[in-house]
């Protein structure tokens, strides 16, 4: 099954990313053009060149400064790395091809940065300008030290034009970045000194560069070889601006600006070790370090009974990588822009969590490093500090997280917010037993009754009342085990989905069975809520049942209609010793339709349907197309998309255990999502998750309070729609 999910991962790659990354190509086009034109001009400008260190004495000072500059940068990074090394070593270098590809595409290629047009272009301008100007400078130096002159004649002129153009591109990028900070409608992440220092510094370097160039042209080129100077158009314009200045004065000004430019450049580059400019180095590194496992998988706490602490309540409980990536954050705010909690005005901003932890790592982390160096207790002198969990990061922020992964998906520097948040939740639940009342009730019900649905009037068998004989009991002989799950059994609305799935499996003559009455929760809710210990107990119990009943076998496949069960079985159960295959009902149903074993031919009413991606099916497991393809094959159905779909799909609000929490904040996530669905004009919303269905139903209750029943948005599981179209009358009656 992993393979099939993997293959879908490829087929369903987002189009947005590609479209915008194509922007990169036109940016490089001028280069080719310049080279062509300069070739044609060869004859006229033979001999064109420039003198290195024109008008500059003591230039060797620069070379003296260089080791200092490098030293300062290295010192900054090494010093910082001592804070990173407070964490636990957990670097994993599996799947190297994927890691390296990510470094190239996402790191150097800035694939994710480009997904936002404005900041994508802005970043591309600054980045290409800096790379080109760096190469230009390097080339000039190389040219000076090798016996052959490369930069003469047309080559020199082309070189000069490229340098000018990319200097200008850099200025445009910096201007866009500054404008961004002035006009950006959201004020949640107002720029700090870092932003102004980096942008102001870079702008200053570009401008002084052109001034120096203009003065050089004014004093040494424009009168002698004016045709050369046209190839430095910006420098030429600057030279014209200085045309009234006496040459001797201009030479003095030139010297001054040259030194300002050079010392400025060397100073500015040291920011690499001390500011978010470090993302030049750290972002590709983080692209490499990001885990390669499915994004919906949480790490297991091994030997949990022997741990000294559960989850993360102190900086040193994080892994090195978790502390490291705090420093990678550039405060772009994309995580928060895409966070369902923040969109609904709830108290969570992933960016602020990372930034607040970063400040904490700076103040408290460095104190801890000092304590280590001085041989003190790690927490010496830190008694009065606000606690990291509950102080620096507030409880309600940790609870508001849906673990939907939208932040992780959006982050251009590959930060993984969700595991960090869940680690802190783990400490809240297991270490401090501090949680919302409803979470406590859910965990207690899981402990006592093996399901999370406190107060349910149903039993595990209630859904099959009246047709028990039509539900095949699992014997160990069948190919598929249909794992109904807790929601499918204990929630009335979800029982309907369960019945639809059974009816479709029967219609297609699938060899399947159900473990009647003996199922228990696979532990997913406990795990997302931070109770890793309870998860492991529940998972061990279920694996034992699967072992006893012959399910835990490579030849057997577990069907689940719940993306949360699916994700846990597929990605997390292998750690617990699971060998069985896993398939989501939409994958199996698509297969059955393809094979002609289910024929959606019945005349269902004409309708427009919008498909809502469940986070744990879509973003976390890359199953975007199977449910859509089923819908497309149902007669009379027109499929339309909400603006946020597939990888960008908005959570229904129930993820991360929020199904069992009271939401705090301005509005509810499900209402926001229902409004998006209603805005498409669709008559029905289809989804493939029993949590999403409930969240939609309750959202519609408020959003469409005043709408007549028949005009309200209908909410269906894909299986329910398919059942209406593909299950014969005979069986439907039965």
């Amino acid at each position, binding site marked *: 099954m992993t393979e099939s999910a993997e293959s879908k991962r490829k087929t369903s790659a987002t189009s947005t990313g590609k479209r915008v990354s194509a922007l990169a190509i036109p940016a490089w086009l001028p280069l080719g053009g310049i080279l062509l034109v300069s070739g044609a001009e060869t004859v006229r400008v033979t001999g064109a060149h420039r003198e290195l260190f024109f008008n500059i004495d003591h230039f060797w000072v620069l070379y003296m400064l260089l080791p200092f500059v490098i030293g300062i940068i290295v010192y900054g990074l090494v010093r910082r790395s001592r804070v990173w090394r407070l964490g636990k070593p957990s670097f994993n270098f599996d799947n190297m091809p994927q890691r390296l590809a990510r470094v190239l595409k996402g790191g150097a290629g800035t694939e994710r940065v480009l997904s936002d047009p404005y900041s994508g272009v802005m970043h591309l301008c600054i980045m290409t300008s800096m790379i080109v100007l760096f190469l230009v400078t390097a080339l000039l130096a190389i040219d000076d030290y090798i016996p052959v002159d490369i930069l003469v004649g047309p080559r020199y002129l082309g070189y000069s034009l490229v340098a000018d153009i990319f200097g200008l591109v850099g200025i445009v990028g910096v201007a866009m970045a500054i404008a961004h900070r002035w006009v950006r409608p959201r004020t949640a992440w107002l720029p700090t000194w870092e932003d102004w220092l980096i942008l102001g510094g870079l702008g200053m370097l570009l401008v002084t560069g052109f001034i120096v160039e203009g003065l050089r042209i004014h004093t040494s080129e424009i009168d002698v070889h004016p045709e050369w100077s046209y190839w430095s158009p910006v420098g030429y314009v600057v030279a014209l601006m200085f045309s009234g200045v006496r040459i001797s004065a201009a030479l003095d000004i030139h010297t001054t600006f040259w030194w300002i430019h050079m010392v400025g450049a060397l100073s500015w580059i040291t920011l690499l070790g001390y500011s978010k400019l470090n993302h030049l180095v750290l972002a590709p590194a983080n692209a490499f370090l990001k885990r390669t496992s499915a994004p919906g998988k949480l790490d297991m706490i091994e030997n949990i009974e022997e741990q000294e602490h559960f989850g993360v309540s102190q900086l040193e409980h994080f892994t090195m990588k978790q502390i490291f990536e705090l420093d990678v954050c550039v405060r772009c705010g994309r995580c928060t822009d895409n966070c369902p909690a923040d969109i609904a005005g709830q108290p969570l901003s992933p960016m602020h969590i990372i930034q607040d932890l970063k400040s904490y790592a700076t103040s408290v982390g460095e104190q801890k490093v000092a304590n280590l160096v001085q041989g003190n207790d790690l927490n010496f002198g830190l008694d009065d500090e606000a606690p990291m969990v509950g102080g620096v990061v507030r409880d309600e922020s940790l609870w508001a997280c849906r673990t939907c992964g939208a932040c992780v998906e959006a982050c251009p520097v590959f930060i993984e917010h969700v595991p960090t948040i869940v680690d802190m939740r783990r400490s809240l639940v297991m270490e401090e037993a501090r949680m919302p009342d409803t979470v406590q009730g859910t965990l207690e019900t899981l402990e006592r009754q093996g399901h999370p649905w406190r*107060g349910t009037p149903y039993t595990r068998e209630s859904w099959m009342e009246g047709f028990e004989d039509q539900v095949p009991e699992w014997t160990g002989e069948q190919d598929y085990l249909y794992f109904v799950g807790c929601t499918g059994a204990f929630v009335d609305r979800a029982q309907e989905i369960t019945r639809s799935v059974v009816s479709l499996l029967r219609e297609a003559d699938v060899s399947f069975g159900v473990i009647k009455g003996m199922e228990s929760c696979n532990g997913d809710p406990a795990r997302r809520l931070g109770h890793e210990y309870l998860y492991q107990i529940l998972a061990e119990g279920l694996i034992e049942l699967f072992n006893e009943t012959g399910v835990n076998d490579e030849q057997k496949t577990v069907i689940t209609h719940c993306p949360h069960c699916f994700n846990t079985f597929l990605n997390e159960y292998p750690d617990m010793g699971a060998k069985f295959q896993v398939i989501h009902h939409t994958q199996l149903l698509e297969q059955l339709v393809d094979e002609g074993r289910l024929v959606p031919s019945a005349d269902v009413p004409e309708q427009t349907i919008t498909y809502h991606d469940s986070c744990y099916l879509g973003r976390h497991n890359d199953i975007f197309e199977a449910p859509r393809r089923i819908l497309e094959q149902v007669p009379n159905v027109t499929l339309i998309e909400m603006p946020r779909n597939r990888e960008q799909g908005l959570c229904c609000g129930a993820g991360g255990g929020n199904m069992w929490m009271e939401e705090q904040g301005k509005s509810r996530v499900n209402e926001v999502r229902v409004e998006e669905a209603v805005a498409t004009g669709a008559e029905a919303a289809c989804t493939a998750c029993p949590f999403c269905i409930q969240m939609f139903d309750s959202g519609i209750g408020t959003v469409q309070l005043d709408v007549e029943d028949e005009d309200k948005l209908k909410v269906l599981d894909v299986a329910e729609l398919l059942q209406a179209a593909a299950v014969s009358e005979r069986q439907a009656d039965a």
Partner: protein
Amino acid sequence: MASILVFGESDDAGLTAPTLEMLGAASRLSGDLGGGVALALIGTALADAASAAGPAGADTVYTADSESFASYQTDSYLPVAQGIVEQDSPSVVLMSQSSMGRDLAPRLATRLGTAAIMDSLGLEVDGDRVKATRSCYGGNARQVVTVQTDPQVITVRPKSQDPLEADDARSPDVIAVDVAEPTLRARTTGKEQAESEGIRLEDAEIVVSGGRGLGGPEAFADLESLAGVLTAAVGSSRAACDLGWYPPSQQVGLTGTVVSPTLYVAIAISGASQHMAGCGGSKNIVAINKDPDAPIFSFSRFGIVDDYKKVLPALEAAFAEALD
């Protein structure tokens, strides 16, 4: 000498309704057990209440009248109650399942060398024993029990028994009991009235009640508005009270108030047994719930399957018109 001694309670309006109900039950039981019915009253200014006891079914009335009995206190009531039982030596002692009965019955029974059955719903005589049917397992089960020692102490759930038709011709013997000043190891330092206004839950003929399905505390304002039209009291499920949506004093259920009005309107209440233990005695239950499978419907006479948010305004208008 009586066969049944009832520990009654009185307030400004005289004997409380549960007291009258117990006297009714005692009269019926004493027919089978033989012997008479006595009422014991502990409190202050008991004269009026005592004189009403005859018409209600008591042959004898014991009064322990003292300022020190102004409010119930285990330490002060217990010796007096013990004295009255020893003086009367009944075979059955009845108390209401009230704040007093709950506290006093087990202690008194222990002091008398016997035991107490709490919160009985039905009473019948079997030889010299009184068989009590009571609810247990949060309302999921019923048990039939007897006390094997004497006297048989039983508390009675309010509204589970019917009072007698008042017969003014009967006048009981009134016996004033000597009151000794007890040593108090606990004293009442104050009292807080519950926040609720309007009709008391246990007195209301109609109760409008809401549960967790309301989705939030705001909805109780709509319930109060409907209750206003119906002259009803407003109740709440334990879940809604525990969530802080409505004051605990308005909780209907096993651990809250037990009500048995003519009409109980359950809005967005699922009908868990814990809740049904508090309202199952209602003469008629009407349920409004969007879940057609909610257990509440199996206890209801009438039901509407729909979202309460839509039904409530329409219902209020319809009632207003009908009652106009």
